[in-house]
């Protein structure tokens, strides 16, 4: 009995000790401001790099970001649990209408989806593909690597007479959304709009030649273990795993590999179709940047966003503003491999947010 009492007292003492931290913090509220964000897991490493760079320059502030997925991040942001949100897709028109004037959407970084393949005969030789052929492959209508349409795109290559296995994501994914948007934009007659989204009922699965993988690592694993397969992954995974990357035919008819310049050029050419101000509706932005015009644009490109509010408490306003300014001015020096900094024209949109954030 006495032992039990001692244990209870010890537990209470530890509890009091733990709570003493909360009160100590209340006292120095003005000294340390923490702003908190959550959302896209794709953005997480890049934001972490920016946050650590920013915190080196600014003392007495702290920024925390947790990758929980774009959808959950938006929900937490609108429930006011977080101060900012990382999101791959922009807000839907409906959501934007509901929070109109209260939320700003900043296209903060660029990412791209690489089409990768595993054909032993090709070794390091670069395959050329276009939206129509990719759509037909994922529809299951092109069956062999040496299909006439494939040979027409790749006159110099000796393509084998082997069945194509099409690898895709099995989980809900922004990567799938971007890839299927590209298929729809490039071949609207073949790839209908109801096959565009985060999860898709892949027609090629019905023909028994489709394979699903969970996450980018799952797609990479399936691709590596399946000869004569083709798949799509976030660019960084293609680099990291040294997978051969296909050149994709863009709207102007050129075959382009996903390079920094090609991805930035797509963003620049999307500019006429983008709103000029972060408070406006960005819901049709993906259609603007995917399969964008321009000589050297890479077609399967997308923005990732940071959402902020228009009003914060006084201390937080300052931190949020400085953080956005820092990303625009110095962030390009802290870009992690696999991401592409937005071109200056897009940065100007983001900088406009600084005038729209008020304390109140």
């Amino acid at each position, binding site marked *: 009995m006495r032992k039990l009492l001692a244990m209870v007292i010890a537990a209470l003492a530890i*509890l009091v000790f733990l709570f003493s931290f909360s009160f100590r913090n209340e006292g120095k509220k003005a000294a340390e401001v923490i702003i908190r964000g959550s959302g896209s897991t794709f953005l997480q490493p890049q934001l972490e790099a920016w946050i650590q760079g920013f915190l080196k320059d600014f003392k007495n502030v702290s920024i925390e970001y947790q990758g929980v997925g774009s959808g959950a991040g938006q929900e937490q942001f609108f429930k006011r649990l977080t101060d900012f949100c990382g999101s791959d897709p922009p807000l839907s028109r409906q959501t934007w209408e509901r929070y109109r004037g209260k939320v700003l959407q900043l296209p903060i970084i660029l990412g791209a989806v690489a089409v990768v393949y595993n054909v032993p005969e090709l070794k390091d030789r670069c395959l050329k593909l276009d939206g129509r052929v990719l759509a037909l492959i994922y529809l299951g209508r092109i069956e062999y690597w040496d299909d006439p349409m494939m040979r027409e795109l790749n006159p110099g290559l000796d393509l084998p007479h082997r069945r194509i296995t099409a690898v895709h994501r099995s989980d809900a994914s922004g990567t799938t959304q971007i890839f299927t948007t590209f298929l729809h934009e490039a071949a609207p007659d073949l790839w209908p709009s109801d096959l565009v989204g985060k999860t898709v009922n892949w027609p090629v699965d019905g023909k028994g030649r489709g394979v699903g993988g969970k996450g980018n690592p799952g797609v990479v694993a399936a691709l590596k273990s399946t000869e004569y397969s083709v798949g799509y992954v976030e660019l960084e995974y293609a680099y990291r795993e040294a997978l051969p990357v296909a050149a994709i035919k863009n709207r102007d008819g050129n075959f382009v590999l996903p390079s920094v310049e090609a991805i930035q050029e797509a963003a620049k050419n999307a500019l006429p179709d983008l709103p000029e101000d972060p408070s406006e509706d960005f819901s049709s932005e993906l259609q603007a940047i995917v399969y964008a015009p321009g000589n050297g644009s890479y077609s399967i490109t997308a923005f990732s966003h940071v959402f902020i509010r228009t009003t914060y408490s006084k201390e937080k306003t300052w931190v949020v503003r400085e953080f956005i300014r820092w990303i625009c001015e110095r962030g390009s020096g802290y870009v992690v*491999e696999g991401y592409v900094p937005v071109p200056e024209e897009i940065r100007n949109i983001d900088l406009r947010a600084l005038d729209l954030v008020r304390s109140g």
Partner: protein
Amino acid sequence: MRDVSSRREAERLSLVRRIKDKLFLVILVVLSMAAFLPLFHIVASILYYGGWTLLRGGLSFLVDTPPSPLSSNLGGIGPALVGSAVLVFLTVILGLPLSFMAAVFTVEYPNTLVARVTKLVCRSFTEIPTVLIGVLSYTLVVIPMGRFSALAGAVALAIVMVPYSYTYMEESLASIPRTYREAAYSLGLTRPRAVFSVFTRIARRGILTGVLIGLAKAAGETAPLLFTIGGLRHAYFNGPDHPVGAIPLLIYEFALTPYRVYREVAWGAALVLIAIYLVIFVVLRRTVREVRM
């Protein structure tokens, strides 16, 4: 002649039996190896990769804050380690009394409606996907509080822990022989006194195992933490009603990225998690001896 042949026959039979016996043993060993091999492979790869990380990072791996994906510096898992310790402590505070009292109640008053319902609910709760428990705590604790907190995480983890602890405790309390119960009461002890001074002590090993199993289940969970604790990387601890980090969450976030430094940290964190389990298990199992009856 007949004698010899029957002896031969007997020898032959015994040989067959011995072969069968050996064969059975071999099959048993092979099958149990097959069951253990994946587990062994997991532990071995964590030891290998995590070991390298710990060697590279040294003691500061346990103290420092996590790295940026750009840095070649390994950093550490300090905030997550502190967060996990706080979470485990709060989970025990919430879950231990709850599961213990529920176990005592259902053993002492087995025929009441409440006891039967408790038993049924607790046993079926082990089957609930833990991500739902996280969402429950998100709705009931995080949203009303207006922020993520260690408390919300501990509530979710306690709900994960209680069914496991309860089941073990209930079984060990119920298995106390009737004669011991009657002996306690014949001394004139009141019911609470009998429960706490006699039954609890007889069943202490089972109760402890219950706490450990429940805790081990809870401490390794990621899903209930995803929407509740918020995560913390650039500070260590701001109080139980503020966001904290946790090792499983850190592993989940880092292991899924393509960046080498993140993966190294995730391996190291996994090794630390396993090491903590082992130490707690071994130490507690050694200090609390079984009661022989």
